[in-house]
């Protein structure tokens, strides 16, 4: 249904030193998304308003914000999703340090990505070596292609309780990097062992499976079910399998039990 008239955009203005929500009136157009309304404010009323964006089509993951308290891409959120009489509140991602207005410092995500060992292709067949390509069946890559849809909007990181409320960024890499790790671990041709780092450095055990990350993912990646839980299982298999634990304990030279 087309809505006419103005919409009140209640935008966060300010820096880490302080700020407040400011109301702006914007004329509605059919099909308008939140990012359009923010741009209208920027072009006409507040030239110095800070906002990140690029593709405006849900492909780059730049324009993440909290719209009426919910983590969303501004470019994919239509105004007519909300009650026409109510103001639309746009706030920066809460999990990350504020830079200015709607922009936060998300550099931490890039730093943790750097610490993840890249793909290490395992032994290749003669045919694969000749062609310089991997032979992998589509059904064997379907599950990692799901993870590779990630556009790095960091909405999952924003909503993760471990990062958002506890701010345990030194203990847990967060859902985005779990997906990166799951992609590498489940790659049919990978031969690296990341299980120790998934357990310790990346801290997969910190996730308590509330699945909030899955709920906010604009790419509809089943982060928890298909990514994090299988990683937890791999860690359990390696470190907490009772038979393996017993065998390890009885291994000559092991002094832990004595």
């Amino acid at each position, binding site marked *: 249904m087309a809505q006419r008239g103005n919409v009140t955009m209640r935008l966060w203005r300010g820096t880490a030193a302080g700020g407040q929500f400011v109301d702006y009136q914007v004329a509605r157009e059919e099909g308008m998304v939140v990012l359009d309304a923010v741009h209208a404010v*920027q072009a006409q009323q507040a*030239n110095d*308003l800070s906002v990140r964006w*690029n593709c405006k089509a849900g492909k*780059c993951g*730049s324009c993440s914000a909290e719209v009426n308290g919910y983590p969303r891409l501004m470019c994919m959120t239509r105004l007519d999703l909300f009650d026409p009489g109510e103001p639309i509140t746009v706030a920066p991602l809460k999990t990350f340090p504020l*830079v200015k207005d709607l922009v936060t410092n998300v550099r931490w995500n890039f730093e943790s990505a750097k610490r993840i060992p890249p793909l290490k292709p395992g032994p290749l067949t003669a045919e694969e070596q000749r062609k*310089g390509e991997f032979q992998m069946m*589509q059904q064997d890559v379907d599950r990692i292609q799901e993870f590779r849809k990630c556009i790095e909007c960091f909405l999952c990181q924003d909503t993760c309780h471990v990062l958002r409320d506890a701010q345990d960024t030194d203990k847990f890499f967060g859902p985005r990097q779990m997906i990166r790790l799951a992609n590498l671990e489940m790659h049919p041709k990978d031969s690296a062992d990341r299980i120790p780092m998934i357990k310790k450095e990346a801290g997969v055990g910190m996730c308590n499976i509330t699945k909030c990350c899955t709920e906010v993912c604009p790419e509809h990646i089943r982060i928890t079910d298909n990514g994090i839980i299988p990683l937890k299982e791999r860690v359990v298999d390696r470190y907490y399998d009772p038979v393996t634990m017993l065998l390890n304990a009885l291994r000559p030279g092991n002094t832990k039990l004595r």
Partner: protein
Amino acid sequence: MQYRIEAFDVVVVGAGGAGLRAAIEASARGKRTAIICKSLLGKAHTVMAEGGVAAALRNVDERDNWQVHFRDTMRGGKFLNNWRMAQLHAQEAPERVRELERWGAVFDRTKDGWINQRNFGGHAYPRLAHVGDRTGLEIIRTLQDKGVHGGIAVFMEHTVVKLFKSEGRICGALCYERETGRFLLFKCKAIVLATGGVGRCYKVTSNSWEYTGDGQALGYEAGADLMDMEFTQFHPTAMVWPPSVKGILVTEGVRGEGGILRNSKGERFMFKYISPLFAKETADTEEEAKRWLEGDKAARRPPELLTRDEVARAIRNEVKQGRGTKHGGVFLDISWRDPAFVKAKLPSMYHQFKELAGVDITKEPMEVGPTMHYHMGGLRVDAESAMTTVPGLFAAGEVAAGLHGANRLGGNSLSDLLVFGKRAGEFAATWAERHEAREPDAAEVGAALQGAMAPLEREQGENPFALQAELQQVMQDLVGMIRERGELGQAVERIQELKKRAQQCAAPGNRMYNAGWHTALDIQHLLVSAEAITRSALLREESRGAHTRDDFPQTDKEKWSKVNVLCRPGADGAMSVTTEPLPAWPDDARKLIEGTLEAVTTKEAA
């Protein structure tokens, strides 16, 4: 005014496919390498590429090889391409794609488990390696991950405002950091420009805010030649409704997977627009087109898969003749295929239409029309080394000219980024090996810095956003898909006036992440390309590829088929526009191209 100093061997400006590939290469060759990106890492324009990357892998059709890819590229470019670039591109693209797979990219597979390939406009055989309709994301993420593990220094959200030379050679770049507004001077031995295109000078475009022709302007101001600037590609299919999404891309992959174009009368109109150049290999009945899609190798390709320039002109003509849709487009229909197939092959198109337009493309047709998408023109480069006409300054990807001639084939951009990104990185590293660093002149740096600060210091002045919108309207109305002398002349005058006003932009607020300030600086870059596009379009008195002149509808087989148009700063500082002969084709290249040349030179523009 203070600025920080950083020193590197090679500085890459731009972190899309070409920039990342160049930086990976320079770094792998032992050079201290920095990459400067205008946005966050992984958000550059490459991420939006949808359909695929063209490379004659021969995984789906064994008849394909680099020679056919070369021929297709030259024909698509209406023979204005630099033949050597087209040859290198066709020869090296397969290895560049396979290398991505070894770095972690996961392309869609064939039944046997190799990299799958799809059909696309102008490519004789299924040639595009792809991942559904998000191939660009796959490529940029792969390169990004490779890059950060290769020791490249990444400067995110930094924008370059000026390049410096010493004794004719490139020696540095000045940029500002978006977050703080502080300035950084990079001292280096070589610079690779990989900044992409100029779409933001048009109102209807698939390009993001970043696409303000920074590399074109920085290079031009450093004395490098601009070439083929008149060739702006209008992609035939973008969303047209609702207004807020007008211009957003609808991948050519829709047509590659069987999408059909119809006008408001229900006619499949592309059959009327088959030019002689492509008549031999294009189906002339719906029945034959259907057989081709079902895999009949004896059948010819549907006319929806003609090159972008041809399809865009056909759509414009249908709309102009009154056979358009309510919102000024035509219908693109993939709903006749199985919904599960559509969702698997075109997932982001499905979501894009569902969420932004309320249209279910598995049940109903899309409304589409042309959008400014890509720029074939740009900095003139040496085919082998990707060096511009300024020593030590390299360019790769969309910012460089030559490979695509008068019209680019879909899928040839992603392969361009990889092939020439790698080459630029390689040759920039070699250059850095052989040359000493030099000092940028302190007075020049100071002047550039003051110029960049001016909009912040002005209390009253032009609104940069309003000025940019004015420029977009001028280009859209007067330098659009169909051009004419009178309108182009008017555009030149309007651009001169806008150039003066752009010097008077004011940006209220401070230096921290100030969008008004950034736009005030961007628009100065944008105006250089806008002027070059307009002046080149005025000079080229013929219609060829993406450049269509209403007053010169013929493709000229004499003068204009033999020259490139160049823009460079004149002695008085004004832009001078000249022509220069195309590099001569050697016999083996000529043989591959021949037989098709006659058709284009007698063709009439639609």
